[in-house]
Structures are given as structure tokens and as C-alpha cells.
């Protein structure tokens, strides 16, 4: 997926919603975000792929909840820790990405964008388009469609 990275010409910039999972900051292109939800009641779907946490009702629509931690190969969330979710649309279906925290919407200048480092965890490489360098931290940009598509493929 890294081939499809955004062209980073000098002064252009993009907006990202910053989320946090396991103390790592990630960015989701803000235009893809439909909703940010607090912890919801999720109906478990038996036999579903492990990344699929279940389904939830978002204003009358059934949304599939994806545990992003599982998807990224991260340890399970401490059950006491609150979670949040970001709702995105993919192929006309809604998905709720369960993550730890939601931060601000930030504007990133393209010049700070870097392709994924070659040594990055292959699982992460798969779902990330690249990384933005910020003063204090690095933000991994999530490619929503590959994040979700590969769940489907893995099943």
C-alpha cells in the first residue's frame, strides 16, 4: 500500500483525527470519519474473525465493531480501560473501530510525511500509508480500507 502514499509537495497539508492505541498515536484522514462514539454496547458475533468484536446499533444502522488492537497485533485492552470508537464507512457499510482514546483533529503538512520505514511490523505496514513526524511524537496514518479489507481476506 505504501506505493499509494500521498504526494508530498511542500506546502500542502491534510487533516487527521488523532487516535491513540496502546500509547501509540495514529491518524485517520478526517474526511473518512463519520462519528466518534463512546463505549457502546456491542453484540458479540460468534464464529466471527477475532478482530470483529461484534455489532452495534448506531441510530438504527447496524455497525460492525472492529477491535483495532487485535488487528494491529497489540495486546488486549485492560478491561478497566475505557474505549472509544471511530465510525468509518467502507464499501457502503459502517464499521466502528474500537480504539483507546480519541484526540484532536490536526493539520499535518505534507512535508513531514514519510513512507513506512522498511523495518516496520509487516502487519502495520499493511494498514499504514506512512508516518507523519511531529515534534514530540510520530503519527502512523491508518489506511482505513486496507485495515478493513484484510480482515475480510483473513477470514
Amino acid at each position, binding site marked *: 500500500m505504501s506505493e499509494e502514499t500521498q504526494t508530498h509537495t511542500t506546502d500542502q497539508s491534510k487533516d487527521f483525527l488523532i487516535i491513540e492505541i496502546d500509547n501509540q498515536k495514529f491518524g485517520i484522514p478526517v474526511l473518512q470519519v463519520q462519528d466518534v462514539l463512546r463505549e457502546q454496547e456491542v453484540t458479540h458475533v460468534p464464529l466471527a*474473525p477475532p478482530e470483529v468484536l461484534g455489532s452495534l*446499533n448506531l441510530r438504527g444502522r*447496524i455497525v460492525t465493531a472492529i477491535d483495532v488492537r487485535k488487528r494491529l497485533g497489540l495486546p488486549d485492552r485492560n478491561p478497566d480501560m475505557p474505549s472509544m470508537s471511530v465510525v468509518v464507512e467502507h464499501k457502503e457499510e459502517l464499521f466502528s473501530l474500537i480504539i483507546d482514546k480519541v484526540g484532536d483533529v490536526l493539520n499535518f503538512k505534507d512535508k513531514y510525511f514519510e513512507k513506512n520505514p522498511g523495518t516496520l511490523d509487516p502487519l502495520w505496514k499493511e494498514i499504514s500509508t506512512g508516518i507523519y513526524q511531529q515534534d514530540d511524537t510520530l503519527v502512523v496514518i491508518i489506511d482505513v480500507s486496507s485495515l478493513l479489507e484484510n480482515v475480510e481476506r483473513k477470514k
Partner: protein
Amino acid sequence: MDDLIIEFITETNESLDELDMDIVNLEKNPNDKDLLGKIFRLMHTIKGTCGFLSLPRLEKVAHHAENVLGRFRDGDLEVTAEYVTLIFESIDQIKFIVSEIEEKGSEPEGDDSDLIAKLDAAYEGKSLSDTTSCTDSEEEKEEKSSDDQSLESEASEKEIVVDVKEKDIAPGDATLDELEAAFAAAPGMEGIVNPADLEKEKKEKEKEKEKEKEKKEEAKAKAPAPPPLPKKEAEKPTKKPKTPPSQTLRVNVDVLEDLMTMVSELVLTRNQLLQITRAEGDTPFSAPLQRLNYVVSELQEGVMKTRMQPIGNAWSKLPRIIRDLSIELNKKINLEMRGQDTELDRQVLEMIKDPLTHMVRNSGDHGIEMPAERLAAGKPETGTILLEAYHEGGHIVIKISDDGKGLAEDKIKEKIIANGLATPEELEDMSSQQIQQFIFKAGFSTAEKVTSVSGRGVGMDVVRTNIEKIGGAIELKSVEGQGSVFTIKIPLTLAIVHALIVESSGEKFAIPQLAVKELVMVSAHGDNSIEYIKGSPVFRLRDRLLPLILLNEVLGLEKNVSLICEKDGNDDEDSKDSNFDEQNNVSKDDYIYDESKDHGKDAKKCNGNNDNKNHYIVVADVGGYEFGIIVDKVFDTEEIVVKPVAGILKNLELFSGNTILGDGSVIMILDPNGIANTSGSIDNNDLANNEHIEKQHEADSDKKTSLLLFTAGDSTPKAVPLSLISRLENVKSDDIEYSSGQMLVQYRETLMPLVPFSSNIKIDNDKDYPVLVFADKVQSMGIIVDEIIDIIEEKIDIQLGSSKCGLLGSAIINGQATDVVDIAHFLNNINNDWFKDHDDTPFGEGENAAKAGKTKKKILLVDDSPFFRNMLTPLLSVAGYEVTTLEGPTSALKLREEGVNFDIIISDIEMPDMNGFEFAQHVNSEGSQWIDTPMVALSSHATPKDIERGMSVGFTNYVAKFDKDTLLNTISQTLMDE
């Protein structure tokens, strides 16, 4: 007017209107193949429908026009301007006739012979001027359009005539009238004096004299608008306004579909609101919500109604199909239809239309025999196909039955083998039900020859697929020589379904109500419990073995601890080597069936649950295959709107969709079909599995009895027929109480007496004791034993008699000397009180027994096995009968000679000197004083053949051994019948 005619007119008008748009183009481009094709199709449709609706005049015009158009379309004939005019003329004529029909409900009187002659001429490729003197229609029509006014009056004048005639040929009148009308319409009927005819006659004469003028007049009357000037068409309605169309509006199905979706959503939202307010109690919202509830319900009903159509619509073509079929095949078939008014969703209707047509055709083609065959088989010459539709609990049942020859099993078998679907050996083991199911397989047709109607083998599998696609099910019952019945069950509507909400391992699921046959509660202390065959749970439901599926297991949820069954190991050698030969000790205990003999010992009977948790079995029916789904809880049913599952989850075949419940939570909808498939229980080859199991079991256990082995008091294993035991329980010594010296335990809110098997059993504190529970419908008693060893299938051959109370003797069981326990003795002697208490409300039907109490019915029990005699005697005497037991027919016949009479004779079949069949023959021989005494056969050989033989020699009934309930019921039934 007939609905069909209205529909036909609406459709034809629509097509005609559409043609108007294109018709201009035809003038410009006379050889436009597409347009010609379109007109051809319209003519073809009109022709076809007319034949069906009996509109001969229209049919004739359409038919001849079609011929010509066919040639144009195929390019055989060049379309000249002349011909274009002719086509217009035909279209106009059709329009005229159609509008007449619309106004008056029947065809106008008149004659189209000129037009037809022209069409025929055109068909032959002749110039029109050769055949008719209508040399210059162009001019004439020009003239015509100029004096439309006068035309109108002429036309109306003609209509009057028509009106008078109308009365004679009103549709629906007897055919005689029609004939008369036809006569009247025929030219040259001068003889008949009748005002209308006079009018007609006049015209007729005129026609002869001034053919040309007549022609013109006719043409004017029939086609007020001049054909070559199609622009005029548009003016026509203003001059002669049509009668207002019928009160219907054609709406695109998509619009209705969207509406339905919205209403479905509204219903869901309402359900949610209602649920919230219910929890809140009285709020200011209650009243408006109530109103909303009402309105939404009405709305839902209304919208549903827009989609509802009587099933008769799907059937309307069937009588014709059957008629044609019977002519083509020279059969006599009568199609009877019931419940045409049954309404169902349009979408569903569309889906079943073709399968239904196919099946009815099949019934006519394959099912009904030739008249001669039927007569030979003693059936009426005319075969009947009965089509029925009715509502049954939220769905619609459609039955197609015929009294034809039924499915030829032999042919199906041949075909199965030829197609390699199963081996002959496999077929041997299949029930006829299973074999019949093969017709639903792809490429399966047993019709000897492919007729034009059916037999191509692309039928029933498509039918089945179509029906299952809409959540329906199809069942087949067929008796060779007597006919077949196909039962289709389909949901009323696809949009909203009723679903049963169940819970398993703390998670809720919805099961479509359509698939649910019944619910069975299995409680820890109920009579019925879940039993295990090598780990597979089964349940005995009204003497049928129901395979069970643990929902939590197939869903990979946490296992249910309470269903774990206790297991003992017993690895002794198989019984095959033992040379037991006693014929009678045969068990029919289906639940101990195991697929392979070698695993017989793994069969376990479990004492259900160890805690007080109840379970529910949802008995599901998937295309005739029944199985039970074990769930923890059952909630109510809810109306749900099935939403497709997310793409990621599409591969989970256990779910057919998901939905949002009233409380706003998301719930997965289970697909019973998928569950059956996943658990591997529904192999297509394995349909009607139950029968399969039973049958095989019958063969396996032919000479065997299921025995429970236990120890009590000493180390010698004891054996007791498993079928006599209701349950196995573990009783804590702390729970054992004493009352007047009798050991008791509180059990299902009653007191159950307990008896230690032997006095050597000491009741220590803090110990669990296995208890064998014997129960009938009223009360239970338990026998305390030391340890339950195993359950095995074994022949019982009592080799050493026993003088000891409570033992019948010793036998080699499992390669070990084993005491065979005389439970009857225990029931009878050890716990006398219990039996005394229940002498007047004994086993089985208290009512009969009470009656019997006054004048005790006398039973003669003939069985060479002491074991059975001992077993049955107390059972029968407790049930209020006076029992005489004999060890063989010879001594029984001696009693007969002594003049002893009985009310009923129960006899074993396999007995050493004289078997049961011979005995029955003796009893029923001429001059026998017992000839009127009913006889009940008692045997393990309850194969249909045996039963047949038994019946033929005079047995009234045939009962399987060890089936005490059936035996008692049969006896009381037989005695009542007498």
C-alpha cells in the same frame, strides 16, 4: 367484468399506447426490425391471451396480423407503404375491439373478414389491391377524417345494434348462447327474425350489394382514426372520451418496496419506543405513543396490503396448462383449486409462481396415469390434482396433491445408482422418505421419456432452491400407487418476520419462527432428559429420536457445564462372541442406538443436569428434517426486519442476517438451515436421519437388550433392562429423610420413596448415592445402588435361575457372571405401599383402569421368557388387569379346551414349540372359542413385514417389547374397541 379481462385490457392499452410512440417511425422506416418485432410480440400476446379469455374476434384479428408480422420480422416480406397501412389498420381494429370490451365487457359484434382477407393476402405476399377493391385506402381515409362527425353517428348506430346483440352473447352465459350468437353473427342468416338480426341482415345485404361502400363504412366504424395518419390518434380521446379506467393505479414495485422498507423501520422504531415507555411506566408520552402505535400498525397493514395479492393470480394459468396437458397426453385430469383468495406478498408470489406451475405440470405429467391404467388400478378414470392454499401461523401453506401413481421408488433407486448418488448398499438402508428426497437433487428426473412439458430433470432442485431462497420449505410425501403430496410452507412476507428470541451462554439470538415447530423444556428433574450417544445428544420426543445440537457448541460459545454427562469406562470385549441364543430378550430402545456395534458400550444415559437449570429444545424443521437446538432460555417472539450481515461476516452460514431489537440491541438471526449443515447432521443423503437410525438400530439390536449394569451390596454386577429405568439420579445422603421407617427424598416437590437394593448398602453421611429411578406418570421410586458401571447392549440368557428374591437369575453379560435383577419384584414386594396407593390410579390411563377396577379385564400373557413374564405381570396387574401368565401356546390352548375365557391375549412371537403366528392361527381357527378374543403380539421384530404377517394371522395389534406405555395403551385401546 372479469379481473383477468380488466388486467388484459390495461396491459394491452399500455402496450398500444407505447406503440403509438413508435408507430410514426414505422412510417419513416418501414423495415425497422425492432419495431416490427415489438408489434409482433404485442399481437402474439393478444392472440395468446384472447384464446384464454375466449375473445374469438380479437384473437382472429391478432392471429392473422401476427402471421403477416411474422413474415415481416423474419424478413420474408418487404414492408411496403401499403403493408404499413395494413398494420395500422390492424392495430386500430384491435384498439377498437379492446375499447369496446372495456366499455361493455364483451367483444363488439361485427366482422373483420375484410381485414383478415387483406392480412391473408399480405401474408401470401400479394398486393392488397388484388384481393380487395379497396384500391385507394389512402384517399378514402382522407375523406373519412374529413367527415368524422358523421362517422361518429354511424358508429353509435352500429353500437346500438351491438348492444342488442350483447344480451345474447354476454360472457358467462351457457355455451349454447354463445353458439347462438355465433350463428347470428355468421353471414346469411336471413331466416332468423329478430330485431337485431333484421338490422344485421340489412347490413349484410348492403354489404353484398355494395361491397366497396360497406367496406368503407365498416372501416370507418371500426377504425375511426385513419391509420396512415397516426397523429390523429392523439386526438381520438378528445373526440370520444374513454370511459373512466378502473379504480386502480399502477405503481412501480420499487416504490412499494421502498415504502415497505420505511414502514419496517418505523415499526422497529415504534417497538423501541414502546419498550422504553413500558419500562418508564406512566409518562406524558404514553398516550401519544399509543396513538402512534395504532397508526403505525394500520400503516404497516396498509402497506402490506399493497403488496398482497391473492395466490389465485399465480394459479390463473394453471387450469389452462392442465387442460392442454390432458389433451396432449390423452389423460383425464381434473384440477381442483382451493383457497385462491389466500393473499401473500407479491414478492413471494413471484418467487413461487414458476415452481408452482412446474409442480402442477409435473403432477399432471408424471403423477396422473393414463385413463386405462387408472381404471386398472381401480381408480376413477379422471385423475385429480388438488391445489390448496391456506394460512397457518404466520405462513402460508400450499399443498399440491395428486391421486396418481406416486413416486416409483424402484425407478428412483435405479436413477440414484445410475447417477452415482448412492450405492445400492446405501440404498438398502434408506427409508422410502429418504429415497424420495432424491428427486430434489439436480439433474434428477425419472420420467421415462422427456415430454414437452416435463421430464428434463431440471425441475425439482430448482423448485426447492427457489422455495428455500424465500425462507420456505418443501416437503414430499408419496405413496406408490396412491399419489404424492407436496407441501410448501412459505412466509407471508419477506420484509418482516417473526422470530423467537433465545439465549445461549448469555447471548441472545433470533430464530425465524417459520422453522420452529415446537419448544420442549427439559428440566433437571423432568421425566424427559437429554441423552447421549457417544457424546452426541439426542432427545426422545414422542417416541421419535430427535438429534440435538447444542447452540453454544456450534457457535463456539462457552460450553454448558450443566450438560456434561457422567461417563464410565468399560472396555470389555464385544458381545459378538457370546453365544447367547435366547430369542426374546430384545430391546427396542432406540436411544441406545449407536452407529457401529463396536461402540455400543459408549452409549450412556445421563441423568440430565446436576443443577436445577432448565434447558429448552427448540425443535426446528428444515425441509422435513427435524432436529432440536438446545438453548438456555427462551424469550418472547418479536417482529424483526431482517438486515443483511456485514460483508466481513457473510461467510458465517449460521446466520441469515441481523436486526435491531426493540431494546435497541443488535441481535444475530440464526439460520436453521445453516445450523443443520454446520453440525453435519443434515447431509442431503442423510435426510430423514431419524428413520435411518431407527432402522439400523433395529437391525443391530435385533436380539439384544440394553442393560444397565451396576453393583449393589456385593461385587457381582447386576443388570437391569435400561428401558425400565426412568432416570439415574445422584442423591446426597444428607437429602435422604425418613418417614415411618421409609427412606424418602424430596424430589420435584413430591416425596420419592427410596429403597436400598440390598441391605448391605449402608447410608453414610456426606456421600452421593446413585439411584435408579422408576417412574410412571404419577409417581416415582428410587432404588439405591452402590455404583453404576455401564450401559451395554447384550442378549440376556439367564443360565441359572435364582431363588433369591429380586433376582431372576444369572447370565453372562459382558463376559462376566451377572445377576439379572427382577425389578418387578422390587416394585411389587419391596415397596408394597407404593403400589397399593396407586392401585386405583395406576400406570397409564387411570380412567380405563378405574373402569377395569369394577370388572377386571382378564389378560392372558403368553411368553416363554420368565424374565418377561415376571416383568409384565406386575405391570399389568398394577394397571388393573387380571393376568394369567403361561410359558407357551401349548398350555394356552389347553386352557382354551378347558373353557377358560380371556378378554385379551398378549403373546410373544418367538417361542420354542409353537411361535406366535402359529398360535394366533390356532386361536383364530374356525370353531375356536377364542376367535373373538383380540390378540396383541409382543415382539422385537416389529418390521413392517412382521407386522403384516401378524395382522394376517389374526393379531389385532403389534407392540414392541419393553414399550410399556404403548403396551398399556394398546391393551386399553383394544379392549375399548372390542
